[in-house]
C-alpha cells in the first residue's frame, strides 16, 4: 500500500479502536466506529462527559480532523445516566 494512498476504512476503524483501548485518556473498548464519506462517526455509551470529550480528542488527533485532508469526527457518544427508581423484577 503506497503511503500516498488513503488508508482503507477497514484499517482506520481498527487503528481507532486500538488507540481508544490503549490511550491513557480513553481506555475504552465499547465505542462503535464507522468510517464513510470522509467522516468518522463514534457511537455507544461512556461513563462521563469528560470521557466522551477525551475519546473525541484521541480520535481527532489520529485522523487529523483539523487538516483539510483529514477526517471529520462526529462524536455521537452518549453518557450513562445516573437515575434510579426503575421497576423491581420479581423472581418467582
Amino acid at each position, binding site marked *: 500500500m503506497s503511503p500516498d494512498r488513503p488508508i482503507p476504512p477497514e484499517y482506520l476503524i481498527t487503528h481507532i479502536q486500538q488507540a481508544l483501548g490503549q490511550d*491513557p485518556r480513553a*481506555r*475504552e473498548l*465499547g465505542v*462503535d466506529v464507522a468510517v464513510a464519506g470522509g467522516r468518522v462517526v463514534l457511537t*455507544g*455509551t*461512556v*461513563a*462521563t462527559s*469528560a*470521557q466522551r470529550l477525551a475519546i473525541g480528542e484521541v480520535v481527532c488527533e489520529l485522523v487529523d480532523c483539523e487538516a483539510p485532508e483529514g477526517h471529520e469526527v462526529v462524536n455521537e457518544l452518549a453518557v*450513562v*445516566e*445516573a*437515575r*434510579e*427508581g*426503575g*421497576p*423491581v*423484577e*420479581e*423472581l*418467582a
Partner: protein
Amino acid sequence: MTRIAAVGDIHVGPDSAGKLAPGFRHLSERADALLIAGDLTRRGTPHEGEILLGELAGVDVPIIAVLGNHDVESDRQDELVAVLEEGGVTMLDGTTTVVTCADGGSVGVAGVKGFGGGFAGACGTAFGERVMKEFVRETEREAAKLKDALTSLETDHRIALLHFSPIEATLAGERLEIFPFLGSYLLAEAVDTAGADLALHGHAHHGSERGVTPGGTRVRNVAQPVIGESYRVYEFAAARSNGAAPATGEVAAVH
C-alpha cells in the same frame, strides 16, 4: 422478601467523582445488598478505587463485587482489591458471601470475573499454540472456581456474579465475531451444574438484558449502558430455593 440491586461496567475514572453517587441515593431503601458485576474502574488503579468508594459512601447495605477486564488493565488488581476491601466492599474471586435479609432469608453470592472462549459450536479449544491453550484454560479455571463456590452455598437463594457472560442471548446486539471475547459456555455449565437462581454479568455494553442458560437459570446483563439506569433490583420470594430452573426461563414478572 429479599431484594438485590445490581449493576456492572460503571467504569469509574479520575473524572467520575460525584457522577455515580446521586444514582445510589435511595438504594439502601430499595435493596438489601448491591452487587457490582465488574469493570468497577476504567484502568484498575487504586486511585480509581478510592474514587469509587467515595461514590458508594451513601450506600448502607453490603456491597459485593467481582473484577472485570478493565480492573486488571494496569496489573494492579491486588492493590485495587485491597483498597476496596479496606473501604468495606466484599470482593469475590472464586469465593462466596452471604447476605442475611430483614425477613431472615439468606442470599448467597458466588463470584468470579470469568473469561472468554465462546459458545457451543463456536468456541476455542485448548489445542495448538501455547497461548491458545492458556486462553482456554484460564476460562476453565474460572468456571471451576465458580462451580465450587456455588456448590458450597447453603442459602435460601444463590446468585452467580460474573463479569463475562455465560450465554449468547445477553450478547445479542454485539457483533457476532466478538462473542468469544465476551463470554464462555463453560461459565453457564458451571452455573447449571451447581445450581443457582440468578446469574448476573456485565461486559457486553451493546448486549441485551435478559436470557437463560441451557439448564434454565435466569441470566441478566446488568452492564450500565444496557440497563440505562443506576442499577436494577431483583426480588426473591421468601420460599426456599432448590436451585431448580424455571421450565421456560423468562417467567419473571416485572411490576
